[in-house]
């Protein structure tokens, strides 16, 4: 009580001085936190490079372009996991983006008001499910379903098309690259759709209503008003989803089949970088084996960095277009 009165009684100058000290402390503190993030990131990079050096020295650049992964003879190449990582993420994007877009458009433009909130919440709940649950669900429920219904249908239809048929060749195993891609699509869906929804909401109602007033249909409004207005946010959401798909570990490990091979068919088992790490790190005998796994981690780091860089460039370009 006494302290309060004293505070009120202080002169403006005193308060200002106290404020400026607070400012200095605050600035130093936030700077320290920012520095800490940089230090941790730098430390991770240094540790990865240091750990990967023996493998990179032994195999050189061929590490990135050879498929063989043989712990017995200690010959390692990263091509199969790199391929698996990129292909599963691509499938996740091809399946996930249209669905996420549809969900976002439905919620913002079409959905009756009473359904809007429950639907949005449920989709966000998808993001809260731990990835191990997706993995177990994928293995026990989804993979048998894919094996019985989806894969035979794909093999009989797309698998017979000349040219691309090899991409969809059997036998139906249930687990494999395609199933992993599907699971990833479900996992990235809430990220992409909730960001799309948020940015769609920012479109000024006056723009949309003017378009409707001119006789535009819903799809014309979405294509010509909403999308051009929000494309930066949409790209950002997609990139966030892609980042998650590239690094996802547990769910993929359960359903991809974990085979260090590149198969022509996406129905066959494969592996990803993070799945290989999760599988093999604990029992990696020998320095070269361990080092090769760390080198895999380093490659994933680089891939993620490249994706982020491309996203940033894309955003800059879009911003410039929007400005000019």
């Amino acid at each position: 009580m006494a302290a309060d009165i004293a505070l009120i009684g202080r002169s403006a100058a005193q308060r200002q001085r106290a404020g400026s000290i607070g400012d200095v402390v605050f600035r130093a503190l936030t700077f320290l936190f920012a520095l800490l993030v940089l230090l941790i990131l730098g430390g991770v990079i240094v540790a990865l490079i240091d750990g990967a050096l023996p493998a990179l020295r032994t195999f050189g650049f061929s590490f990135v372009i050879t498929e063989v992964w043989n712990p017995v003879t200690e010959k390692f190449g990263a091509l199969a996991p790199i391929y698996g990582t990129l292909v599963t993420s691509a499938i996740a994007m091809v399946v996930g983006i249209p669905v996420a877009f549809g969900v976002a458009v439905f919620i913002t433009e079409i959905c009756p008001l009473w359904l809007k909130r429950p639907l949005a919440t449920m989709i966000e709940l998808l993001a809260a499910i731990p990835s191990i649950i997706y993995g177990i669900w994928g293995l026990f429920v989804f993979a048998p379903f894919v094996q019985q219904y989806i894969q035979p249908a794909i093999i009989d239809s797309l698998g017979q098309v000349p040219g691309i048929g090899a991409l969809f060749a059997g036998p139906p195993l249930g687990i494999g690259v395609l199933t992993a891609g599907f699971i990833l699509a479900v996992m990235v869906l809430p990220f992409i759709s909730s960001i799309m929804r948020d940015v769609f909401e920012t479109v000024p109602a006056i723009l949309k209503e003017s378009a409707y007033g001119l006789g535009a249909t819903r799809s014309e409004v979405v294509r010509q008003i909403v999308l051009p207005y929000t494309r930066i946010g949409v790209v950002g959401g997609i990139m966030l989803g892609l980042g998650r798909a590239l690094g996802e570990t547990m769910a993929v490990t359960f359903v991809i089949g974990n085979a260090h091979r590149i198969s022509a068919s996406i129905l066959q088992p494969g592996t990803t970088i993070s799945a290989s790490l999760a599988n093999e790190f604990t029992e990696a005998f020998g320095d070269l084996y361990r080092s090769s796994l760390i080198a895999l981690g380093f490659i994933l780091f680089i891939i993620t960095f490249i994706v982020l860089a491309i996203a940033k460039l894309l955003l800059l370009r879009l911003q410039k277009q929007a400005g000019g």
Partner: protein
Amino acid sequence: MNAFRIALFGVGAAAAIGFVAQAAEISGAGATFPYPIYAKWAEAYAAKTGLKMNYQSIGSGGGIAQINAKTVDFGASDMPLKPEELENNGLTQFPPVIGGEVLVVNLPGIAPGQMTLDGPTIANIYLGKITKWSDPAIAKLNPGLKLPDTAIAVVHRSDGSGTTFIFTDYLSKVSPEWKDKVGEGTSVEWPVGIGGKGNEGVAALSARTMGAIGYVEYAYALQNKLVHTKLVNHDGLTLEPGSDVFQAAAANADWKSAPGFYLILTDQPGKESWPITGATFILMHKKQDHPEKAKEVLNFFDWAYKNGGQLAGSLDYIPMPANAVAIFEDSWKQIVGPDGKPVWDGHSS
């Protein structure tokens, strides 16, 4: 006042942590396969003697690294170290417990123990040379069975594992082509098949994939009600898996003339020897800086050899036969303190 209380609490907590660290007197790290039985033994041993054993199941590779760095009192590995590796690192090893592996299949109308397989056939399946269940090689071993024309879905472990080491070691022994093309290890370059993570992953894939064949520890096959097969052993006899035939493989093994106990129990001679049997190993330094700690570790395993059999059996591990235990305990003489005297005198204190 409040700050003082918090400080007091902090000191108390720190003291408690210090006390716990003191009480956990021996520590080990390594293989995941024997973790359940080590944990169970530790619990029973602590109840009896008050001595606590702290075991981290971080994987065999990690166990070897930690014992070399001397951060633990003993390491554990599912893959025995070769005698020269032991020599180079000043280590010694002994096996506390045995496990058996079985092949499991998923085919309509085939019940547990109905099908018979032999080593060369399994090797050819895992090499991708036998691709259908109706193959003549399988039909020849199973004259009474109606075998479907289904494709064989090969299932293997995706994670590095002692189970895989024992299995691939067996295939290397029975198939020169396997030894030449693939070899043995905790993980290998599989020519065909899909990988499941852990015994449970292989069990799940085998149970869910039509036409599957997989290898799992016997306990997993039992718990998951998988369809195991009989196997033809080294002496040409067809056996049903079980603790008696697993133990027979260890009893017939010639531990005495195996330097560093580098002996893998697969494809052992003997009428009753199950072909895919394996032991898990404990690693210790021969020169001990803290002889009293090493003594506690050896006391623990001595107790486990003598009294841990029933607990092991309850978890479907197989205790070591008595004649083998005598040989292992004799080897403990190599573990000496700074004064050069053996740390363990043959009596638990």
